[in-house]
């Protein structure tokens, strides 16, 4: 390992820019002649639009244009799409309701887009929007996940009777039911996986621009995958063909999934820019972010686990209703199906699994992938059931898990996935030691002496990252392939530009990707730059989500670097007058084996471009290679998190006293960045468990539409973490890496709730376990204690 190569905790290149205010985000981009957009949003969760009168608004100062759904329809702008087809049990395709960028005839959630006002300034646009008169016919709303499919519930889309998007299932029902019929013990749970608001630090923004000389469009946008945005806006929404459409995602301040999707606002900005022949800019305020960013989670689930007499799991049975909101967002349909049910085997040998998932429409913001996307929901269910099963059968929760661990790899689960590698017991052993599990009894007694309740909770999670191979996801309904691209451009003086289809919005690719190249080519880290987020520079790419940039994006770079090395070896052969086969490449130097004849990499680069030492007809001049990498399997990060909490029964306040995380991410590129990802993921997972919950009232108003009511985790809510890693290299990619971006958010919620239920002595607590909820639960605990005495 070199000081700055793979495996080194190199400080992040991009941080100086970010922490000194030099980042260049979409809202920092201002184009000459730019106008501003303000979206008039529906104040009603469900209503017909009988009439929109914007005559007075159009006369307000500075107004350039006002557009409504009629204008979108007249221009034949396509609706927003959902790019993953799910089929119901009966073989019928999912019921995708039309999703126009500006509402046509009906609004379906508070925040839905009714009209856009374009004016010289944002203030003028907003002012004018207040003068638009909309005649709404208010309809009853449906917001409750469990209630949406009820007969007689308000219908969100005519195309979807009973608000049902699909009734999907996976697994062998007959074998699973049979295993339950002969089970010695069945553990059961009913749970709600609470709806979350992503809350990236940077709100969404877009600047659309039209160049009438080239009849081309440019869109600057807060995207995790600008190429996919261009593909959708071009091929499906039909704004312009791809070769005349440039999408740029500059610095992006966090996404957590919410910036994967193609939204109405960027569609309208770029469409309107051509209409008004001026650049059109929009930046969400925080309230708009709460109302209109795709939310996460929102499941209602019943789960059961069957055990035999020896305490081995024989089967799992799951029934989930997933709320997808008012419209199908870009990848929403795959989240509660393939990203969820495929993970139900957890780290355990479960011979039979059967899961049914009903997806429903409601009059709420669309729900789509959010950090972990389906896998946190699976992990929460599996790990809650494991904890309950251990408690009900009187087994130690750690040892009950160990007894059911998968120990031989590869392992074919009954839900499609084949785990390629892992060592679950190693993570458990390490975590038990770090958590000082042996002395938990003493710590519980010490808390009890203070009138407090202490508990410990386990979470042995597994996730599937990389999200590929393309043919495999295609067979499951994906509309795209999930490979990644890379181009390595070596300049004549030996510096390197890496063009990648991955996109960094906090992950630190400028650092980690440069580490890979620096180590491989033996050139200084500073001599490598990373180019991403611009469809005019990077030809095509699939972007960053699902912890895929390391496992997939870097693998593409490795493949391109292989080609660079092969070509450079030929050039070096000519320079050194030796056969390429007789040349070895090490530490940035090409050497004729067994001699001291050598040439360094920058010199080879120069020779490749001046092409004096070889015949340019036999060997092409230049040193530039590209590659597409399509993985052979998903990757399977896994680990054990242990949370220890103390509850004050007098107030319901839960304090996290100790957190142990031992993760197996395979090989690590930059351990410091990995640890940062773990920290952030745990914070978000703790947020889901204790603090965060999007609440709609029965009228469909978002009660938690600001930070006054929606509690984000803060530094003083969190402990210092004890973080460890184990390492079983991933066999499915050349670097042996698995991905770490979502692990904490997947692992944390069950660890917290298992700790809390251990402290409380009963299972009656839901997420978010707010002080109010915990106080009520603790009263039950105290009553149980009194009854026992």
């Amino acid at each position, binding site marked *: 390992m070199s000081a700055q190569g793979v495996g080194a905790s190199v400080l992040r290149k991009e941080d100086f820019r970010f922490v000194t205010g030099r980042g260049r985000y979409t809202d920092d981009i201002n184009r000459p002649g730019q106008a501003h957009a303000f979206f008039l949003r529906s104040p009603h969760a469900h209503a017909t639009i009988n009439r929109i009168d914007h005559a007075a608004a159009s006369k307000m100062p500075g107004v350039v244009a006002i557009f409504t759904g009629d204008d979108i329809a007249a221009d034949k702008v396509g609706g927003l799409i959902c790019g993953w087809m799910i089929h119901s049990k009966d073989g019928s395709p999912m019921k995708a309701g039309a999703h126009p960028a500006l509402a046509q005839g009906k609004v379906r959630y508070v925040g839905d887009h009714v009209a856009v006002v374009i004016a010289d300034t944002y*203030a003028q646009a907003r002012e004018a929007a207040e003068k638009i008169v909309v005649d709404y016919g208010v309809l009853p709303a449906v917001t409750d996940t469990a209630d949406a499919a009820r007969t007689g519930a308000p219908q969100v889309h005519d195309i979807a009777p009973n608000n049902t998007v699909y009734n999907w299932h996976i697994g062998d029902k007959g074998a699973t039911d049979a295993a339950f019929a002969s089970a010695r013990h069945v553990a059961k749970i009913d749970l709600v996986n609470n709806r979350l608001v992503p809350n990236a630090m940077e709100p969404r923004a877009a600047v659309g621009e039209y160049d009438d000389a080239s009849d081309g469009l440019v869109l600057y946008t807060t995207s995790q995958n600008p190429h996919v945005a261009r593909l959708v806006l071009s091929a499906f929404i039909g704004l312009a063909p791809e070769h005349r459409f440039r999408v740029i995602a500059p610095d992006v301040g966090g996404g957590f999934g919410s910036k994967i999707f193609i939204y109405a606002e960027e569609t309208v900005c770029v469409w309107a820019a051509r209409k008004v022949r001026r650049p059109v800019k929009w930046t969400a305020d925080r*309230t708009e972010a709460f109302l209109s960013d795709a939310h996460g989670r929102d499941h209602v689930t019943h789960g059961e686990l069957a055990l035999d007499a020896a305490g081995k799991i024989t089967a799992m049975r799951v029934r989930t209703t997933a709320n997808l909101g008012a419209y199908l967002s870009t990848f929403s349909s795959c989240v509660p199906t393939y990203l969820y049910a495929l993970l139900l085997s957890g780290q355990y040998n479960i011979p039979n699994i059967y899961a049914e998932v009903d997806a429903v429409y409601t009059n709420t913001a669309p729900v789509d992938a959010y950090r972990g996307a389906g896998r946190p929901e699976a992990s929460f269910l599996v790990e809650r059931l494991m904890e309950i099963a251990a408690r009900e059968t009187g087994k130690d929760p750690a040892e009950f898990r160990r007894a059911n661990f998968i120990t031989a790899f590869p392992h074919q689960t009954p839900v499609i996935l084949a785990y390629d590698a892992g060592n679950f017991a190693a993570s458990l052993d390490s975590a038990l030691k770090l958590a000082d599990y042996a002395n938990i009894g003493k710590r519980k007694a010490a808390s009890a002496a203070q009138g407090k309740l202490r508990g410990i909770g386990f979470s042995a999670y597994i996730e599937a990252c990389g999200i590929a191979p393309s043919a495999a996801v295609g067979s499951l309904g994906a509309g795209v392939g999930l490979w990644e691209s890379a181009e390595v451009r070596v300049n004549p003086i030996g510096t390197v530009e890496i063009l990648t289809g991955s996109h960094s919005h906090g992950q630190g690719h400028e650092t980690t990707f440069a580490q890979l190249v620096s180590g491989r080519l033996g050139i200084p880290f500073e001599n490598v730059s990373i180019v991403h987020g611009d469809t005019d520079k990077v030809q095509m790419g699939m972007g960053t989500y699902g912890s895929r940039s390391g496992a997939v994006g870097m693998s593409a770079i490795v493949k391109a670097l292989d080609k660079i090395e092969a070509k450079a070896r030929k050039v070096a052969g000519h320079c050194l007058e030796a056969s390429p086969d007789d040349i070895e490449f090490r530490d940035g130097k090409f050497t004729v084996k067994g001699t001291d004849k050598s040439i360094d990499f920058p010199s080879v680069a120069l020779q490749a471009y001046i092409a004096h030492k070889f015949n340019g007809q036999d060997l092409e001049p230049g040193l530039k290679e590209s590659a597409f990498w399509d993985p052979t399997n998903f990757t399977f990060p896994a680990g054990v998190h242990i949370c220890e909490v103390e509850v004050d029964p*007098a*107030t*319901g306040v839960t304090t996290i006293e100790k957190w142990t995380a031992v993760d197996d991410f395979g090989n690590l590129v930059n351990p410091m960045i990995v640890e940062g990802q773990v920290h952030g993921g745990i914070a978000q997972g703790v947020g889901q468990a204790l*603090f965060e919950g999007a*609440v709609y009232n029965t009228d469909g108003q978002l*009660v*938690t539409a600001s*930070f*006054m*009511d*929606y*509690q984000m985790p803060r530094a003083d809510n969190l402990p210092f973490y004890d973080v460890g890693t184990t390492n079983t290299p991933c066999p499915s990619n050349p670097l042996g890496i698995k991905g770490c971006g979502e692990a904490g958010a997947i692992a944390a919620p069950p660890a917290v709730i298992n700790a809390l239920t251990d402290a409380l002595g009963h299972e009656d607590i839901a997420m978010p376990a*707010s*002080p*109010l909820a915990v*106080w*009520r639960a603790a009263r039950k605990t105290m009553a149980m204690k009194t009854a026992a005495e």
Partner: protein
Amino acid sequence: MYAFNYHKPATVADAAALASQHADGKLLAGGMTLLPTMKQRLAQPSDIIDMGKLNDLKGIEVKDGVVTIKAMTRHVTVATSAEVRKAIPALAELAGGIGDPAVRNRGTIGGSVANNDPAADYPAACLALGATIHTNKRAIAADDFFTGLFETALGEGEIITSISFPAPDKANYQKFRNPASRYAIVGVFVAKKGGDVRVAVTGAGDSGVFRQKDFEAALKANFAVAALDGKHQPEKGLNSDIHADAEYRAHLIGVMAKRAVAAAK
């Protein structure tokens, strides 16, 4: 934000005159409530009368056992004042626990008291310490000042100039924060002075800050945590929201009152 006329008077008299002239105008002190409200277009004052130049409304004086804090004094100044810390440590601690550092560096005691937000901290201190609110027109006892949600005894053109707090023998303020906003869900200020004990509750009442006279009577008889055993705050008249229902608030009032008694100094 909607457009408004801006004034920055140099004297309290000028500020009062402007406030009287513009019925839909607003006095701007620290702006910690007014400005966010305006930014969200929830308030549309015709005129803003900025009190930032009224330098004679800044400062703290302790004399004859009375702490007098002028209206435009920032929370951070109260929190870090050695004199306040010595005379009424509970008051300095309360000021140091308002909002966050940014709020404490802008927000003022006069603004907080005049606004009478039902979740604000200072009103509890005013009631429990038996403060007097001085205006450009008169002196008002705290007991007569807070008249309802965001309502006070202040008349048109009346501006708070200072607030004086008689130092108690012992006092303490305990706040249970809303986990999201971190405003008080329940804040209880307990103060003992001679034979008198006052218990003021903020954050919980549907008419704003109030005195818990049942607790006061018990503590007058015996200023000890045990005196509150078996004393319950009724739920009636308490707020309910997604973070705390009335039952929880009532319970927390008892818990916070006991903790305040235990910590009083």
